[in-house]
């Protein structure tokens, strides 16, 4: 089976599952067939737009997200508590800084996941991406050190290659 066919089938299955979960209609043949037609229509449209590829349907990444997502959520929770503590403390112990980190991912999708993971974590924002260098603004020196230790970089590279 060619990769394009594999991606198309995966996208169709994803669209069908999303349609079923969103609508909640399981047993009306008319609505189900209309839903199937909608999914097929969307599939044809995005194929014409040439979006059905390893970036648009990232099949390789999805299973590994099971490991990455909980880790990221826990990092975000820890960062939330830290930033909340600093905002609420009377003298606000912040030390904003700006620095560049290297993204070691090989493609755009990996770099987007990395830059967005940095931004999602409170206390660090990716301000600018140029090639494989990300300009990061951090609320504190500690948050900046956390990014420079590059654990997140390694994990995203393991995720997206």
């Amino acid at each position, binding site marked *: 089976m060619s990769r394009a066919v594999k991606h198309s089938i995966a996208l169709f299955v994803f669209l069908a599952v999303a349609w079923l*979960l*969103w609508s*909640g209609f399981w047993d009306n043949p008319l609505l189900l067939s209309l839903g199937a037609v909608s999914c097929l229509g969307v599939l044809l449209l995005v194929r014409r737009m040439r979006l059905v590829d390893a970036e648009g349907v990232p099949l390789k990444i999805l299973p590994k997200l099971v490991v990455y997502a909980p880790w990221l*959520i826990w990092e*975000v*929770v820890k960062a*939330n508590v830290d*930033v*909340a503590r600093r*905002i*609420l*403390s*009377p*003298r*606000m*112990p*912040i*030390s*904003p*800084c*700006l620095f560049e980190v290297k993204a070691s991912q090989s493609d755009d999708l990996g770099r987007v996941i990395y*830059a*967005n*993971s940095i*931004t*999602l*974590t*409170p*206390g*660090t*924002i*990716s*301000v*600018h991406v140029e090639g494989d260098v990300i*300009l990061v*603004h951090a*609320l*504190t*020196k500690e948050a900046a050190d956390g990014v420079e230790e590059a654990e997140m970089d390694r994990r995203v590279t393991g995720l997206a290659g």
Partner: protein
Amino acid sequence: MITDVLSGICLIAGAFFALTGGIGLIRLPDFFTRMHGAALTDTLGAWLILLGLMIAAGFTLVTVKLIMIGLLLALTSPTATHALARSAWEHGRKPWMLPEGEDVPTDG
């Protein structure tokens, strides 16, 4: 009964983080640091409120839709934050730094 209490705790904790984000938006000194404050509202504030609603909704399609909202937020909020920060940076806004030679303020 237990689900009511759990969902209430999540909702209150979520509201606390959303409120703290708002306080940060006012207290922090400049554009870039304020974005870090707003990140609290986008992440744990929104997530805990969604979690509280999921616990209240139980094992239903409503919970599936709440999960979808969470996924949408996790994808769109960092993208929007990055677009905002990049635009400010490219238009020459300089981030606020601690004055030269001054230590990080500490409590106590």
